[in-house]
């Protein structure tokens, strides 16, 4: 197996015109904590993890600013950088001391499609505390899912360049492969890639402590007037519960629990789940009327940030 230099998903940075509304939503209702703010930007942490922040919001044209990953250590980061340069990846900046909140050492580059990625180490971690029983706030950022126009090309890029592995896939008998769930550690997936009509954020998902907290969080977010688009239910791929909502910027966001852990990666055989055979719960993007609605929501707006580095 390829020796992974990426250890985990760190954060998702997003830009949107209604920045203030989005920030207030995540802090007041979704359950993240603002750990740092600057003019027109906010860094949001999850209480239960020492990761300095899990979401960064910025006022601007709607786009994914970047997806942040952690490397195992500085040596792996340097090695990954050298490797990516040799493979012709478009570098935004070489490894250096990072100047944004929480600092660290890292580099930025574009993936195959032009999403900005960051790999970092030695960021200044924050205090973490266990989520209490019944507390309806996220434990952590679970996974980020992106739409692409060429599923296999994008997927292979993440496998060959960053060491991701396909855990499971969704397929359709006529439409072919629809979605790959990909891991960089023992969590069933930290990212997933979906065949879509354009490049965009499909959804981001936050893990809740358990079903009780997931239900309370879902009730709370509904009472805040948030539009629910799908769920609740349990996915076949990853075995996690789900409830999907639309945030003020029009991004789909998920509360999940109990994402499967792959304890023995050597013994894991990726499944190809036929969305016409499994329950409706997994029918992203298939042809029937119901899932067309869900799919349309998760297509999201066209990402304006492809091959454009985020301003910070």
């Amino acid at each position: 197996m390829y020796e992974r230099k990426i250890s985990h998903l760190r954060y998702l940075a997003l830009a949107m015109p209604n920045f203030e509304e989005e920030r207030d939503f995540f802090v007041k209702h979704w359950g993240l904590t603002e750990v740092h703010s600057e003019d027109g930007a906010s860094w949001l942490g999850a209480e239960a993890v020492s990761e300095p922040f899990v979401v960064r919001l910025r006022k601007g044209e709607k786009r994914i600013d970047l997806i942040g990953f952690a490397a195992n250590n500085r040596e792996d980061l340097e090695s990954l950088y050298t490797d990516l340069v040799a493979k012709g990846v478009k570098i935004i900046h070489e490894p250096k001391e990072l100047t944004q909140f929480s600092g660290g050492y890292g580099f930025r580059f574009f993936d195959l499609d032009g999403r900005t990625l960051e790999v970092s180490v030695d960021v200044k971690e924050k205090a973490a505390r266990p989520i209490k029983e019944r507390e309806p706030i996220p434990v952590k950022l679970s996974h980020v899912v992106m739409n692409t126009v060429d599923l296999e090309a994008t997927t292979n890029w993440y496998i060959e360049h960053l060491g991701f592995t396909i855990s499971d896939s969704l397929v359709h008998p006529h439409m072919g492969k629809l979605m790959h769930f990909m891991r960089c550690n023992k969590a069933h997936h930290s990212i997933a890639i979906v065949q879509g009509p354009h490049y965009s954020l499909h959804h981001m998902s936050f893990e809740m402590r358990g079903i009780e907290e997931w239900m309370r969080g879902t009730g709370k977010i509904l009472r805040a007037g948030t539009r629910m688009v799908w769920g609740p239910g349990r996915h076949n791929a990853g075995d996690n519960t789900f409830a999907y909502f639309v945030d003020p910027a029009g991004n789909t966001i998920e509360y999940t629990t109990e994402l499967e852990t792959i304890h023995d990666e050597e013994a894991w055989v990726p499944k190809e789940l036929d969305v016409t055979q499994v329950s409706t719960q997994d029918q992203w993007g298939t042809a029937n009327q119901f899932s067309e609605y869900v799919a349309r929501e998760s297509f999201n707006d066209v990402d304006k940030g492809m091959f454009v580095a985020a301003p910070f």
Partner: protein
Amino acid sequence: MKIHIGADWHGYERARSLQQWLVSLGHEVVWHAAEQFDQGDDYVLWSVRVGEAVLTGEDNAEDVKGIIVGVDGNGEVIAANKVNGGRAIGAYSLPQVVEGRRCNNASVLVVPTAFCTDEEGRSLVSAFLETSFDYTVDNARRIVNTNEYENSKTIEGWAAADFPKPDEYHPATSN
């Protein structure tokens, strides 16, 4: 456990008795009804106050429940369920209360003095407090779908009238 309790004049004495009993069991009991017996007071305000207190407690991660005492209990159930997110049930038999907790995650129990003795009332309350929700996704889905309808008049994003026909939409129905 934190228990919010309320009653109109019909249920006042029984509610005071339940309050003492629950305190003796070690619960934190918050009284929401009239401080003194108030002949002819209505159940609506007390029912809504108990329902709101329970929801606020749920949002604040408390281990919390509500108990309302009335005559037949019907009006109290209706009123308490007007609170957004309210999950009140009447207490009419032990198995029914147990199912209300197990399947519906009932958060407020309405004890009808007309249909149970003091002792029966206490055993219904015990069953309510001691039975856990079953934490299955199927039951969670029904509760959340109801909560969604309450807030947006949709179920999984669909207006009830426009909901796809069964051949277009097959929700998982494993039980």
